[in-house]
Every structure is written in C-alpha cells, then in structure tokens.
C-alpha cells in the first residue's frame, strides 16, 4: 500500500477517533466553536476543490457556489424523502449505523449530482478562455440559483428544512482529508501534469497532442463533486437552506480564499480557509470589545468591504497570495498582439 494511501487511512482513523470520543462533548459544551470548526471544514473542501480548477488548471471559475447549491439541495431532498426508508432497513432513526449510512448515501448522491452538473456546465464552457469563462461560470451559477428559486419542490423562496443534522466532525474532516487526498493525488499524477500544462501553455499542449479539454473537464468535474459534498455537509449542519445562501457572493468568498492562499498551493489554500473562516468571528468579537471606535465598527462588520479591499491590495502587492508561486498567473501573460 502506498505511503499516501496509508496516510489517508491514518487520517481517517484519527477523525473517527476524535469524533467518537470528543464529538458530544464539544458539540454540547462548545457549540459555537463546534460551528466554527465545521464551517472551516466546509470552506476547506470548497477552496481546495476550486483551487484544482483555478489554481492548478488555470481556469477561472466564478460559479462554485452553484455546485454547492446543487449538492446541498440534492442531499436535503434525499434525506427528507428517503431517510425513512433507510431507517426502516437499518434499525430506526436512533441507530448510529442508520444515521451514518443515511449521511453517507445522501452525501454521495449530492456529490454525484453536482459532478454531473459540473460535466454539463463544463463541456460547453471550457472551450472559452479567461474572462469569458469567468462570466459564463458566473452565469451558470446564477442560473442554478434562479432555477432552485423557481422550483416549488425545493422550497423556492421559502427555503428547505433538512430532516437530519447528521454532519459531525468525522464526516466533515473525513471529507476534508479525502478531498485533499484526491486533489493531491491527482496533481501528482499524469493528470496533474495535464492540468499544469493546460495552465501554462494550452496551445503548446494541444500541439503536443494533449487533449486539453479532457483535463479541463476532469478538473471541473472533480471540483464540482467536492463542492456538492461540501454543500451536503453544510445542509445537514445548518438544517435549513435558501437559494440566497448560494449566490455570487458565496462564490466570491471561496475565490477570495483561493487567491489569498495562493492559486496552485493546496496547503496555502487550506490555511487561508481556516484564516478567513475565523476572521469574521474574530471581527464579531472585536466589535463587542472597546478596542474599536464606534465609527469604524460598521466597517469591521462589513465583511464584503474588507474582502474587496483585500482582493485589490493582494493583486497589487502580492498576487501569489500567501503560499502560491504565481505560475497560475503566467499563463495569462499578454501575448504581443500581431495583426
């Protein structure tokens, strides 16, 4: 068994252990920190998967929240309608086997559905380059959100309550570990070489006979799968989802994390996810202390103003983010325009 696979198994065992021994204690006594921990996990999955597309493959996608929405709503509908069946088969709603099986199946369903959507969106869009791809993915993200808003079965504007809050530390961090494992394995395989070539010089890659569309689509589909998984975890944690929660600003949140972490650096992106999930809570706590004069408190609480300034300053001063190496940007260098 390869070393990386062993690390994966070990990490999963650790997750089970923490969950088994510490879960209830943390969840009941430190519910607030528990919430933050789970949110960190969800953001790590979102950012790592988006990094695969934006960072490693150099395709700028602005619609990640749309796939998260598909995953959230798919798993929510699944749980709401099909859990009684699973419980019936596996021993009732109290049995841990039943709840975990329900979570596993609904998360898997969410991921697969989101991956299918990723394929459907990716194949036509990934022919486009740069700015156009960004706008089209933004468009698809919005279309998905508006479609959900107009679907009564999914709760439309009322939102959808989710039957079971199955998300726990094991599922969240287990998925985190799995996502990182898959992304890193892909990157260090021939697929990774393909991604990087597409990022660095697509024309040369095509000239060498590499099927760039295949690599782009693979990256997109894998990323969408994990976005769907993240959506499922989110839905089963917050127990209530609305289409507004998956709008363009949510996609921007994830993009900011990826850029801050450094496009193309998984460790950077993970750290940035942790940082940017904790930041609003720290700002919230700061707002309650006397450190900040009241005039500026509103600015502190206005997360989007801070994020937008962060984006601009990052791009002007340190575009490679915290840990990136900037190669993702080189692809977009200007070619001399010749007539």
């Amino acid at each position, binding site marked *: 068994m390869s070393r990386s696979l062993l690390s994966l198994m070990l990490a999963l065992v650790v997750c089970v252990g923490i969950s088994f021994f510490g879960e209830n204690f943390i969840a*009941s*006594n*430190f*519910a*607030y*920190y*528990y*919430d*933050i921990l789970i*949110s960190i996990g969800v953001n790590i999955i979102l950012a790592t998967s988006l990094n695969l597309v934006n960072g490693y493959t150099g395709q700028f996608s602005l619609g990640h929240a749309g796939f998260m929405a598909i995953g959230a709503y798919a798993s929510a509908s699944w749980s709401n309608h099909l859990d009684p069946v699973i419980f019936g088969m596996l021993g009732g709603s109290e049995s841990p086997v039943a709840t975990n099986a329900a979570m596993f199946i609904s998360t898997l369903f969410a991921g697969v559905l989101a991956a299918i959507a990723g394929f459907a969106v990716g194949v036509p869009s990934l022919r486009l380059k740069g700015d156009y791809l960004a706008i089209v993915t933004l468009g698809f993200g919005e279309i998905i959100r508006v479609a959900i*808003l*107009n679907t009564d079965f999914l709760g*439309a*504007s*009322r*939102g959808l*309550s989710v039957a079971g*809050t199955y998300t726990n530390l094991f599922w969240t961090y287990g998925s985190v570990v799995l996502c990182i494992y898959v992304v890193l394995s892909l990157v260090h395989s021939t697929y990774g070489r393909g991604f990087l070539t597409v990022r660095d010089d697509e024309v040369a890659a095509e000239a060498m006979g590499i099927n760039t569309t295949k690599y782009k689509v693979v990256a997109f589909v894998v990323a969408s799968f994990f976005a769907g998984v993240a959506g499922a975890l*989110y839905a089963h*944690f*917050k*127990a*209530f*989802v*609305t289409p*507004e*929660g*998956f709008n363009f*600003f949510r996609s921007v949140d994830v993009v900011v994390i990826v850029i801050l972490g450094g496009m193309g650096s998984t460790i950077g992106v993970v*750290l940035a996810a*942790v*940082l940017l999930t*904790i*930041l609003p*809570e*720290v700002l*919230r*706590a*700061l*707002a*309650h*202390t006397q450190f900040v004069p009241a005039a500026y408190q*509103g600015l502190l*609480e*206005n*997360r989007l103003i801070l994020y937008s300034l962060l984006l601009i300053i990052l791009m002007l001063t340190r575009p490679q983010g*915290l840990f990136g190496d900037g190669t993702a940007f080189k692809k977009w260098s200007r070619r001399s325009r010749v007539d």
Partner: protein
Amino acid sequence: MYVVAMANRMRMPALLGVLALLSFAAQSARAQIKIGAVTCLTGALSTFGVSSVQGAKLAVEEINAAGGTLGQPIQLIVEDNGSKAGETATIARKFISQDKVVAILGDLTSSATMEGAPLAQAAKIPLLTPSATNVAITKIGNYIFRSCFIDPFTGKIMAKFALDQLKAKQAIVMTDVKQDYSVGLTDAIRQYFTQNGAGISNALSYSSGDTDFRTQLTGVRMAHPDVVFLPGYYTEAALILLQAKQLGIKCPFVGGEGWDSPALVQVAGKAADGNYYTDHFSAADPDPRVQRFVQTYRAKYAALPDALAALWYDGARLLSQAVQRAGSTEAAKIRDALAETRDFEGVTGRISIDENRNAAKSGVILKIENGEPKMVQEVTP
C-alpha cells in the same frame, strides 16, 4: 529559515487567536439577565435591522431604568447576521453555548429565524421572533414563539378589508414570486376572497429587483378590476404604484406591511395617495401609549419609529415581562410564562400568545393621503 518563515506566517493567526481569547474573557459574567438579539445590521437588509435593534434597545433601556427584571438589569447582546444565510445558526450557537443567554430575540426575517429556531428548540432556550411571519417557524417546537401576526392573518385582513370596505367583487393579485412573504400572503388573500363570493380575475407576477412593471400593468388596465392586491415589498410597490398612475390606472391598491417604509411615498410621490395597506403599527395612532413610544423613540433616534422598531420594542418588553412572571431565569419557566402571555399591552396592539405560540393581536389598516399614512381602521382577529 523555514521555521522562521513559518513563525512569521503564524504571526497573524496567533494575533487573531489572542484577540479572540481576550474577547471571550471580556464577556465575564455579572449579575445580569442576558438576552441575545440577532438581526441583520449590515448587508442588504440593514435598514430593517437597524430599526429593529433601536426598538429593542429602547425597550431594554426603559426597563433597566425602572429597576430591571427580577431586580437585575437586562444585558442585550446584539449580533449581526450580515443579511447572509448560515450566520444566524452560528450566532444562535454562540448565544446558547458561549453567552449562555436566558432567551433569544430574533431573527428579523423568516429564513434567518428558520435557521436559528431548531437550535434554540434543541437546547431548550426560548426564542421569540418579533417580526418573522412564516407559519412554519412556530411549528418547529414549543420553545419557539412569535409576537407578530402571521401571513395568513395579514392576507385575511387585506381581503376582508377589500370585500367589506372597498366593496370589491373582482380583484387582481400581483405577486412577487421571489419572496416567500408575498407568495404566502397571496395564498391567504385568494383563499379568503374567493371563499366569500368575490373573484380573482387575474394573477400577475413579478420578481424583486424588477424596475419595470408596465407590461403587467397594461394587463391590469385592460381588466378594470375593483382593487389590486399588491402583497410585496415597498421597493417594488413604490414603482408599481408610480407606473400604474402613469398608465392611468384608477383602482386602489391594497398591500401588506411590506409597504411600510418612508421610501414608498418618497419614490411613488402622489401616486401613493388613495391606496391602502395593513400594518402592525402606525405612528399616527392617537393611543397615548403609542404616542409616548413615538416621542421617546424620536427623542433618542431623531426619526419616527417604523413597524419593525415598534415590533421589536414590544418583543423585548414581552420577553422581559415573561421573565418577570416566571420569577426565575430557568428556561422552562420562562417558556411557560411566554406561553401564558395574555393581553400584553404593546404599542403594536394587545398581544396574547395563542396555542400555536403565535400572537393573537390586532392590526391596522392605513390609507395614504397627501403622502402620509393615515389610520383607517383597527382590525382584531
């Protein structure tokens, strides 16, 4: 070198961690009754949130000035959900596990309350929402209460008013299909209206964010209804009223409390005159209690209170009165006291909590005349 680099990189997270711990320490306990209030202070819904907090804070100040509740001052811990999904759940957890509040006041919107209510129910902490109108909220559990009326009631009084006072037989409904509130009201209106012998001749739709309603209004003009129901928010209602007047539509429009905002008359101008809407509260209500509230609010905030400020003012007072009646800060006793609220005298009417934990209270019907809403009628359930 690597270690130094890593240590350098750790500086910022470490600093943030220290600050977080400091703030945790700063909230050390004193003998106070802690109530957590969650609303949307920033973001797209910030004006509503600011009103609501101002109302709640005014109430808490008055109570504390009069000696507090159970002899102790109330500490209102206000948190902002940023008008974003998912935040209210985090804040509810914070209130429950970290701040250890005795009750939660909030949220402002139905979708945000739907996030927080299951958590409050599971932790058996009473939650009172003064302004979320979706029926499903109080069905979540017996610790969830509401001190405003629900959409079916609003829809009913709109329809009843049109039938009885405006003598309408044929109506058109314009629904904002993107807003749960509007859809809910439309169903209630349609039900009552048709059950009592009148007819909805056409159901038109629009979306929040639209600015041009002329296509739909051309349909209204050609149908000549007796009345048009417009159960949406003031942002679109103002433009609809304006464009209706420009197109020469003469029949009155009837709306719900979503119309409540000074911006309605500002944008619609003279086109707003002659239309009606239901509301929880009117600053023009001559009732002395209401006027006293309006004076104190205006003195403190230099503005007239709107319905949200009034609702949250009542909500905070109702909660504190329940704690007083319960005689203790035990969650179960507060819950029971809340459920037993009868004839609480609020500025938004006399409030009793019914068996579904919703508020049975009166509403008002307002008519806009010369740019000012004037009270036409008080409506009791």
